[in-house]
């Protein structure tokens, strides 16, 4: 049995190639809102380099869970969900240009700015240090690892070659409270919610795709309520059909506060 399927593998190596879409492009947008009492936000414990890191003399809030007054959830990831055998989506030409621009991850006042970044494979990620103290930028995802030393006012460019299924962590090992989230994908179809909880992914090839929702404090948002869609129990995915020239507005997606992990 084993021999036969190994033989099969040999015979069918490297099948899939990118499919080009002729059917045009559409967009996906929405707004994620937390419903219920959000856990209290804790202060970071600044126990090192207070001179540079406590610029406004007050310990900053933990930025892993930023919820607006109306429950708007910041830094949630919306990303395309593909199984290993699913086709690779076509890439809209506008993304080719955008990919040439580096994504910046800055260290400001001993915080990562922005807190969540999305970068494509092959795209340049500029790690920048605007502080007066040294940092390191330690990126660990399932498939990638980088650990770069950043002297003060210095910057380093890196690229990734492997895509990840889930976002990974960025930490500074010197300043323990510093962390950020990074997602590395081959395709550009992912978004991060803004402070008002909104997101938009433009120029998705028309067709049926799966998208999933993720946040650091919940993991995959399995409890997310997407009007008119059924959210997958395991991967928190919804199946949407993107039509040419249209923007699919998912509306207000509500997440019960109980699904947010305390830590």
């Amino acid at each position, binding site marked *: 049995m084993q021999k036969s399927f190994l033989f099969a593998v040999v015979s069918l190596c490297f099948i899939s190639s990118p499919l080009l879409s002729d059917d045009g492009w559409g967009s996906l947008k929405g707004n994620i809102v937390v419903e219920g009492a959000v856990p209290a936000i804790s202060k970071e414990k600044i126990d*090192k380099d207070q001179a540079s890191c406590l610029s406004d003399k007050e310990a900053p809030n933990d930025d892993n869970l930023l919820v607006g007054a109306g429950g708007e959830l910041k830094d949630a990831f919306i990303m395309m969900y593909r199984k290993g055998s699913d086709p690779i989506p076509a890439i809209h030409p506008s993304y080719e240009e955008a990919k040439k621009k580096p994504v910046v991850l800055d260290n400001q006042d001993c915080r990562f700015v922005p807190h969540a970044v999305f970068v494509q494979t092959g795209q340049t990620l500029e790690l920048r240090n605007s502080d007066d103290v040294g940092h390191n930028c330690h990126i660990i995802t399932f498939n990638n690892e980088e650990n770069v030393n950043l002297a003060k006012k210095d910057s*380093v460019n890196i690229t990734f070659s492997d895509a990840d299924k889930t976002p990974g962590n960025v930490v500074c090992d010197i300043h323990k409270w510093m962390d950020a989230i990074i997602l590395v994908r081959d395709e550009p179809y992912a978004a991060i919610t803004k402070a008002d909880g909104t997101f938009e992914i433009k120029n998705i090839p028309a067709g049926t795709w799966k998208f999933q929702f993720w946040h650091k404090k919940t993991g995959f948002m399995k409890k997310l309520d997407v009007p008119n869609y059924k959210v997958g129990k395991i991967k928190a995915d919804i199946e949407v059909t993107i039509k040419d020239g249209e923007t699919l507005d998912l509306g207000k997606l509500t997440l019960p506060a109980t699904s947010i992990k305390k830590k």
Partner: protein
Amino acid sequence: MEILRGIKTGKLKTVRHVLLQFICLLGLIVILIIMTGCNPSPEPQFRFNRVALLKQEKNDLAEGERFSNAYQSEIGDILTALYGTPNEPRFPFLLGEEDPAHDVLSLNNLQLAAGPVAADRLEKTAGLYREHCSHCHGITGDGAGGTAASLEPYPRDFRLGKFKFKSTPLRRMPTNDDLTRILKNGIPGTAMPSFRTLPDNEIAALVDYVKYLTIRGQHERRLIAELSNLDNAPILDFKLLADADEEGQPIDEEMKAENTETFEAQLYTVVGEYLAEDIIPRWVDPDDEISEVNNAPAGFQSKHPAHSALLQTGKDLFYGKANCVQCHGETGLGDGQTANYDDWTNDWLKTIGVDVNQPATYQDFMMAGALHPRPIRPRNLRTPIFRGGNLPSDVYRRIANGIEGTPMPSSPTLTTDEIWALVSYVKSLPFEDQGSPENELPVNDRIVD
């Protein structure tokens, strides 16, 4: 004492009775011992990576939900089919003779390293790994052998596919020479001893076996990570190859072709994509990735007074641009940053809901076989021996490339001469004049060894 009473009172019948009971009991014990003792021991098995599974469950499933047990046995079956057992290793050379994996390891070497210990034979044909390594690294290479819990740092868990001391940069696999050097030199300051006294062919066999366990572990982690994609379908659905459906009706040609295609796609994911495309290529020709050690500036480590400038440069870098002081501390004792964890711990410690300060939150990981989390300490630079090797080029690579799996970062912004200056300074630290104004040595230089 019963017996004695019998003798004293002359009740021989009772005594005989007691004695008979005694003999029967003895016989029963002997039979039990023979039954349990003379059964040949069960063959040891590779241990399933339950920590990774638990992590996957915690990340992907709702609280309290578990993946079906069938997954675990299926992954086990797939791995056994591909990699064999600790006594009979196999390796999936997918492309036969031409498979690039032949450059990575050889089956002969695996057989020499696998199997039960054969130390009583002078010509060894098997069992090297279990003779020399499995006490600490475990039969599975999970770094959880019998002595593991009492060692600091813990023995390496190969399954993550990360190696600290190598001549290649991060995310590249170590070369054969790197692994051989670790085996030959040991890792001073840890429990990893030197195996210099073993013959070269045995070391080569062990190197290959380490790679084998690593690849197997990486593949296993991949399969586990795949679980949540599967929606309760088997990873490899052999029913797709059947000629008839469940009710015995023959499947039409078109359907069959589709089924076969689905199966092949599954198979491709499991073996082709994960192994052949993802894991193996990183292992092939890592020699091409060796990071260069540029020429040192003249006067490196010289005692000539004219060269003390190099040391001074190194010192300035240490406290300034190179950030060393942030972790290694003002005095180089390694006390600057003492609450980080290495990647092997972070791998599960960063799971949502786990708080290192509250053991209750990770109790289930302990049960699954994870070792108690212990912070990784920055090196105490006041001792003259470095774990990754004492040669200047070793220290150079540690600074330039960083150390994989640890907070030690790479330093792409430092120039060659700057790195050499740092090497020079770091190597002079243990012997630094104690009267040197800025860096007085604390009395106890063995706080962190």
